[in-house]
Each structure stands twice: as C-alpha cells, then as structure tokens.
C-alpha cells in the first residue's frame, strides 16, 4: 500500500506559514499534481513528503506507516528534481541502474531487465551508452525520470521537472513522463505551476492557494466546476469571467442574463454574488434570439487553435467570449449573447455556492 495521507500538516518558516493545517489523501497508484502559483506551498508540501522538510505540526503517513520522523533515505521514495542530479562519468544506462545496485532485493538479471524496459519506454535505447553531459536538458531529465521510477519504490515525487527544458524537448519529456506513469503502479505526486501540464498528466489535481488546498479533483471537474473564484481564474486561457449579480425574491439577475433565473437554493444574504462563466460557455449571434442579451463587441483577437477570443461590453461589464468562427459583427457593433445557463456557477465571498 502506498497511499499518502497528509494529516493536519502545518509548516511555518519564522512568521510565515507556508502550509496551513492541510488534510489530504493521495490515492494508491494515482498521479496527483500539486498546482498553483509561486508561493502557494506546493513545493513545501512535496518536500515534507520527501522528508526534506519537517512539518511544524501534523503527521505524514505512507499507507499505515507514520513517516513524519523518518529521514529521506528511509522513506524509500524516488525523486525527480528541477535540476537533475546526475553522474556525468556514468552512461545513461548506468545512471538508471545505479539506485538498484544499492538494493539487495533486486538481482542483477532483474536490474538489467528493468533498465532495458525503461530505455524502451523512454525511447532512449539508442542512447544507452552515452554519457550524461552529452545529452540536452530534456534527455537528461528523461534519464532522471527513468532512474527515479525503475527502482520500483512505492512513491515517486516530481518537482517541476520541465522548468529548464525548452519547448520542443519539453513535449518529448512530458510524453516520456506520461508513458512511464501509465505503466507503473506507483503513487506519484507531481509539482507544477503549469496548468496545461497538470491537466495533461494528472488523475487528480490539488489546486493550492496561499498554503491551502482550494480543490482536489479530477482535471475536467476542476476546470468545469471550480470550487473557488481562484480556481476559475487560475485555470483556463484566459480564466473564467466573474460577472456581478443581484438576488431578489429567489431569482438572480446579471448583465449577461436576458431575464432573471430562478435560484434552486437560498444564497447568503448581504454577500456580493458573482456569476462565473467560462469564455466558451457563451454563444454569440448577429441577430437577437430568445434568451440573448445585446452587448458591444469591443475587442477581437485570434486565440487557441483559430478560435476567436473576443470581449463584449454589457454596460460597464466586460466579458470574454470565445467564438468558433468570425464574430457575427464588426468591432464596435452590437452582438447578441446567450450564456449556456446550465453551466453557470455562482460564487459568494470567493467560494462556489451552487451545487
């Protein structure tokens, strides 16, 4: 068993609290990404799992084993760092084999078999004899991945492994990591600030904000149903729109709504409500239709994969909208916009209040 349990862990550095009373369970055999902006506590949390930092309070368990007081070497975790720690005088193959040489439980034949398998998975068979300093940053990092995984520890930790790798090599590296983690049954905790990387690799993402976990969920859930305004803003290119809304007599009105919508539940009185809607959850037309609201097309650019990224102003409220084709009106002209009502989310005080 190698589930990881973080049991009410706090970490302070002087007066600064990096991790605040966290409780989270990383399931056995899953890939969990710790995602968030710099300073959110993701690296500190990973370093505590690795044994490189000691919690100020709380416990860390691997399965039933309390490892809080154990040194790194006794925790039996594989690690991949931002800057790979390598042996330049050893070949690719020898680097991958090295941690297994120190493990008496692995026979020489088994070791060779695992090295060969790893070289295959990493697509590095023809580079097996090369020395580390002959490789580019991407391939060096692939070797580090192979070395961390091949020894077969229950848990492997990744600390922003793609940071220092240039764009094209990065794709190769992410592919290699994806291939490796799909084959292994190890529990993986992967730290990144890159939302695309997290969405691409993770079974579940722990989105972190100021030492706290804002949401721990599957990537599609995190994207389509963020628990917090922070989550809506952080994920997406660009992030979610938040439109001020008003509540009266059990209905909700906002600049993007043609008529108030009935609320399924009560909302806290006196707290400003915002309506959260992603740029691709609004449809735009050239003519009014049932349910549309008129606005002025104030900006249009080309976004991802040829979609248009536009900005529409409804009175003083600007909303970003993605359209599949050319917007139906020229800049400065009126367009008619209809939000996909069933996708709308409501937020109060930064937190989602709709189911």
């Amino acid at each position, binding site marked *: 068993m190698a589930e990881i349990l973080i049991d009410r862990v706090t970490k302070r550095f002087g007066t600064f609290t990096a991790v605040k009373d966290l409780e989270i369970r990383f399931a056995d055999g899953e890939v969990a990404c710790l995602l968030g*902006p*710099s300073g959110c506590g993701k690296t500190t949390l990973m370093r505590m799992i690795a044994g490189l930092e000691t919690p100020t309070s709380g416990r860390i368990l691997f399965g039933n084993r309390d490892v809080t007081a154990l040194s790194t070497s006794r925790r039996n975790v594989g690690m991949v760092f931002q800057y790979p720690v390598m042996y330049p005088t050893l070949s690719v193959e020898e680097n991958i084999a090295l941690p297994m040489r120190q493990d008496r439980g692995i026979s020489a034949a088994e070791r060779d078999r695992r090295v060969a398998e790893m070289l295959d998975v990493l697509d590095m068979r023809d580079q097996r004899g090369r020395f580390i300093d002959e490789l580019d940053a991407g391939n060096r990092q692939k070797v580090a991945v192979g070395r961390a995984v091949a020894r077969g520890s229950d848990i492997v930790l990744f600390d922003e492994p793609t940071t220092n790798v240039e764009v094209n090599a990065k*794709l190769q590296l*992410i*592919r290699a990591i*994806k*291939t490796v983690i*799909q084959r292994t049954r190890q529990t993986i905790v992967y730290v990144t*600030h*890159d*939302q*695309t990387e997290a*969405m*691409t690799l993770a079974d579940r993402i722990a989105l972190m904000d100021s030492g706290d976990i804002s949401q721990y969920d599957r*990537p599609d859930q995190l*994207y389509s149903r963020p628990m917090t305004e922070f989550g809506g*803003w*952080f*994920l*997406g*290119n*660009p*992030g979610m729109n938040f439109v001020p809304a008003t509540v009266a007599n059990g209905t909700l009105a906002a600049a993007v709504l043609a008529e108030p919508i009935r609320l399924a539940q009560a909302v806290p009185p006196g707290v400003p409500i915002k309506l959260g809607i*992603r*740029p*691709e959850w609004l449809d735009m037309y050239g003519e009014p239709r049932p349910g549309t609201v008129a606005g002025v097309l104030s*900006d*249009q*650019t*080309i*976004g*991802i*994969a*040829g*979609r248009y*990224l536009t900005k529409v102003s409804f009175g003083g409220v600007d909303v970003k909208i*993605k359209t*599949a084709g050319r917007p139906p009106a020229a800049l400065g002209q009126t367009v008619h916009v209809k939000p996909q009502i069933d996708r709308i989310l409501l937020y109060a005080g930064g937190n989602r209040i709709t189911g």
Partner: protein
Amino acid sequence: MSAVGFTRLCKAYRHKPALDGLDLQVESESFTVLCGPPKSGKSVLFRLLVGLEKPDAGTITVAGRDITALPPAARPIGYVPQSFALYPHFSVYDNIAYALSLTGTPRDEIARRVDRAAGILSIGHLLKKTPDQLSGGEKQRTALARGLLKDAQLFVLDDPLVGLDYKLRERLMDELKALRQELKATFLYATSDSLEALTMAQSLVVLDGGRVVQHDDAVALYHAPRHVRSLELVGFPRANILQGTAANGIVTAGPLRFASPLSGLQGPITLGFRPEALRRGHGRGLDGRGRVRLVENLGGELVVYLETEGASLVMGYPATEAAPAFDGEIAFTLDPADILLFDAGTGALLAAEPVEA
C-alpha cells in the same frame, strides 16, 4: 502620418546583414507587434530606433521627423528593454522616477505619474522597497513602469512579459492594451510567444532575414499568411509545416499526396496548414491515420500530437470533442484547400494565379 517610419534601413555586423534594406511604416495609435525567428532583425531594429546603435544606411522617422542622427536621450520614445537593470540602492519609486527627475519635471508632477504607472502595474505597495526585496516579476513590472513613464507618443517594448507567470502575463496583456488606448500612443512590441503576439496585436509585422515579409492586420494575417514565417510564427499551437516535392501535378509531403492546385509546380516545395484544419475522422479530401503521441489538455481546448509515416502533425480543437486515447491510433482528415504552398527557397506564398510558362 505614421508614428514610426523605417526607410531602406541597413545594418551589418562583420559584413553579415542583420537588416537588409528594411522598409516599414508603423501606423499611429496602433498596437503593432513584431514577430520573427531568432536573428531576424527584431532586436537590431529596436536598438537602432532607440538610438543605442547607428544604421549603416537608411533613415528612421518618428512622427514625420527624421531622428536618425539624434542621440538616444533626445528621441521621443519610451523604451522597455528585454534585459533591464534597476539601481540596487534606489527605492522602487526612485527607480521609476529617476529619468524623469533628470529632465527637471516638477516633483508633484513626477509623483502623480509614478503613482499612475505603479497603479496600472499593481506595484503601488512596493514603492518604498529596494530591488533586492522584490520578486522577479515585481522587478520586471518596475522596469515596465519606468519605461511607460516617459512623456512620449511612442513606446517600444522588447518582450516585456517573458518569463512571468502565465496568469500575471494574462492580466498585464489586458492592462497594456488598455493603457495604449488611454495614452492614445503607439506601441511597438516584440514577443517570442505566438499566442501573446495574437492577443496583443492590432497589426502584425513578420520579419525574416532582415526584411519585412508581411505587415497586416492581425486577424487578416492569421487567415492569409503570405510567407511561411507568417504561418510558422503566428498562431498557437504551431502550424504544421512540411517539406515536400511537386512532380507531374502531384504534391507529396510525408503522409500527404494530392493534386497540385497550381500548374507547373516542380521540385522541392514547403507546405503548411493550421492545427485546426486537421480534423478527426475522414472524408474531407485527404485522409490518413496517425498514432497519438500526446494529448495536451488546455481546459477549453485539446492539442493532439500525432505521429504519421514520416511526419509529426499537430491538431487543435475545442475540448467539447472527445480526447483520443494516449498512444492509440486515430483517423485524421484534411481539406486540400486548407493547405498553403510556399516557395521552398524564399518562403513566399505560391499564389493561385496561373504560373507563367
């Protein structure tokens, strides 16, 4: 009148031309973004414009006035260089205000302008700190504020957001666009990020080999690139570009084989198409199969990297369509009308006009 004009501008280093008779007129009050591969002349052009170097030949005008011979300080240009240095012993406020204080601007006028620039860049709370107390992003915003403080109608920004957190960049992109409108100034902006270029630009200039190969409205340029660099450097994900050959009316490149839309084509040819032109399924004219190397999930969109016989292809589509299985095989289809053909030597678009015999 254009805000900036470059006429037959030449600059060589060790007899190698970096700018090769470059002509460019930048429209007043536009947000114009310069794109180009490394060594295409972007940075050289900026250095000549702000006066850090002198051209070998040609002229530079700003608002109709020839500034080619003016010293840097006399040029009416606000400049945010790519690599910036802050004065370590000055506060953030003094770093931003320094250049202005040298011009004899009244103290309260300086304070008003520093506050405004700091407000736009969200560094108002940092004005009393010194650079060593700032994060990398905060230093960068301080440098931006310093460049934007100048009383000018023209601002030159050389990749000012490079290396910043994605979310900070997203916000600053919005703010810089709004700031340009507010100042009614001209922004000449370079970036190496193709999505940033498209998000910021009203007008795009594509450089290659020290010349302008295309200068157009951003949306128009995206849909009608006239040079392979325009296709390659503008758009995210990157366009598919393949090397192929034309023979006897048939174009062949990697997994693709189709009737040439142009008569008389023969020999090596470069072809390209957008990631959104490549679709899953079949029946659009050119069909094939590929192995899925990676599926990137951008939340709202998916980017699929395919390996086919002899070529890597990229497709991009809204995430409302299903994601293919990692390492699985899928069918793809492409309309030959979406494929652009370029001269393999010059990179110029081969237009659909009849080729001269």
